[in-house]
């Protein structure tokens, strides 16, 4: 029988963290930011079926990067958590803060107790009645929670996007401007030539402050093409002989 090598706890945690970080950095980025009418979510995601952005509850939404099966697992758990709470208490008792807490505890436990940490990074956003009441929580693979203000970028080139956002984002941005900014920054992903992302490569959604009850809406197709000024490549190819 072989004697296992001694690995210091510091090294063990560092190895796990490096592993998770690498996994997350491989994926395309997601940008979440406040705009004048609510909160905007933009992801580069060529799939129309496998979402990175999702509705959780009336005023709460979810965005994630990393390994699909792992964040999908967290997404479904979040919807169950919110619906159970809303059903057993009241719709107004479901808060982004409690969901962010539950996610943090869950990710933290998985990180410390299982050999393989989740390779995910999650944003839980809740739109308030006023922009000051909006909440953005960023959760990382080890269960750390950050209370963010204004904008969050996650994924491969999160740092570059965050730097650009710190210069160009402002609190009162109109929806169209915010969407164009997010798309432009996501197009710089990868470092080489800036790319022009087409509506077919994007997943866009908002939490619209002015809507009653369920505030989450996806934006796609013609509406998206019109705002970006880029034709939908999928629609084009469908029309071609």
């Amino acid at each position, binding site marked *: 029988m072989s004697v296992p090598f001694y690995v210091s706890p510091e090294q063990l945690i560092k190895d796990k963290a490096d592993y998770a970080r690498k996994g997350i950095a491989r994926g395309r980025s997601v940008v979440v930011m406040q705009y004048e009418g609510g909160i905007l979510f933009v992801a580069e995601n060529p799939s129309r079926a496998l979402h990175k952005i999702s509705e959780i509850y009336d005023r709460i939404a979810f965005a994630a990067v990393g390994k699909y099966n792992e964040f999908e*697992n*967290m997404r*479904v758990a979040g*919807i169950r958590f919110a*619906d159970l709470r809303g059903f057993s208490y009241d719709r107004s008792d479901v808060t982004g803060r409690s969901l962010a807490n539950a996610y943090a*505890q869950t990710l933290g*436990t998985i990180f410390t107790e299982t050999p393989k940490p989740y390779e995910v990074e999650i944003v839980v956003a809740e739109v308030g009645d006023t922009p000051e009441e909006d909440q953005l929580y960023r959760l990382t693979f080890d269960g750390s929670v950050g209370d963010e203000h204004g904008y969050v970028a996650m994924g491969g080139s999160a740092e570059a996007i965050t730097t650009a956002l710190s210069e160009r984002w402002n609190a009162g941005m109109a929806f169209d401007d915010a969407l164009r900014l997010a798309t432009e920054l996501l197009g710089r992903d990868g470092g080489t030539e800036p790319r022009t992302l087409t509506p077919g490569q994007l997943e866009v959604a908002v939490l619209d402050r002015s809507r009653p009850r369920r505030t989450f809406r996806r934006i796609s197709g013609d509406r998206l093409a019109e705002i970006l000024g880029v034709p939908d490549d999928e629609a084009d190819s469908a029309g071609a002989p």
Partner: protein
Amino acid sequence: MSERISGRLPEAFLAIGSSGFVDFLAAYDPSLLPSAGVPSQGTLDTPHGTTIVAVTFPHGMVMAGDRRATMGNMIASRDIEKVYPADEHTCVGIAGTAGIAVELVRLFQVELEHYEKIEGAQLSIEGKANRLSSMIRGNLGMAFQGLAVVPMFGGYDPDGDRGRIFSYDVTGGRYEEHAFHAVGSGSVFARGSLKKLYRSDLVPGDAVSVVLEALYDAADDDSATGGPDLARRIYPVVAIVDADGYRRLPDSELEPIVQRLVNQRNTRPNGPFAPLPEGDAS
């Protein structure tokens, strides 16, 4: 319980499985289901909701319910609401034990929304009708104790661009109704009224008049169904569902229609004449 103390999401939340909320609840915390805690014997006197009527019109449907709940010979409530939106394009009306029925509707609303969020797509209208069916079947034990719930489900079906109505029995049996239907204690009288007033080419406004006439006839002959209460300004709940979604008529819109109906009944208490076949009428 340790999971709840530590604050992490319990295993059941992370389990891979059904997209249904009722299934999740049954596995995780069945005490929250409306059918939990079936009394072992005896009967209870509880508030009962009464009459619900619905008619389809081209490209949509109207559902309406009176506002009375009764407990034995007492009026338990004169402003109970018995027609609810189930989701954007469907609605559900309830007759039977009010407390359980309201809870069942609340659960049904969460069920539809839950599925939509998890799957990223809505259930078909048949799928929704079937989910309701199995939820009613889950209540069968209580039905035996006299706590039955008999809902009516309806909505706009985008496949086919039309309104549809589904009725149920206490065992969860699901039946699609064509044109119109009524449930509850006053349904016999309402159905008679609907038969004579329904036409397949109703415009939405006329469909509203038809359901209000039917409810008036039900209240006329059934003591458990409440008529429009002009003194308190309590009018039936009337909901229209079409391609634009669910819309409950506000009281301001209902008031003139109800007022006109009552005025007409003051001169002709039995309501409008249905014409006899051509040639037979003198």
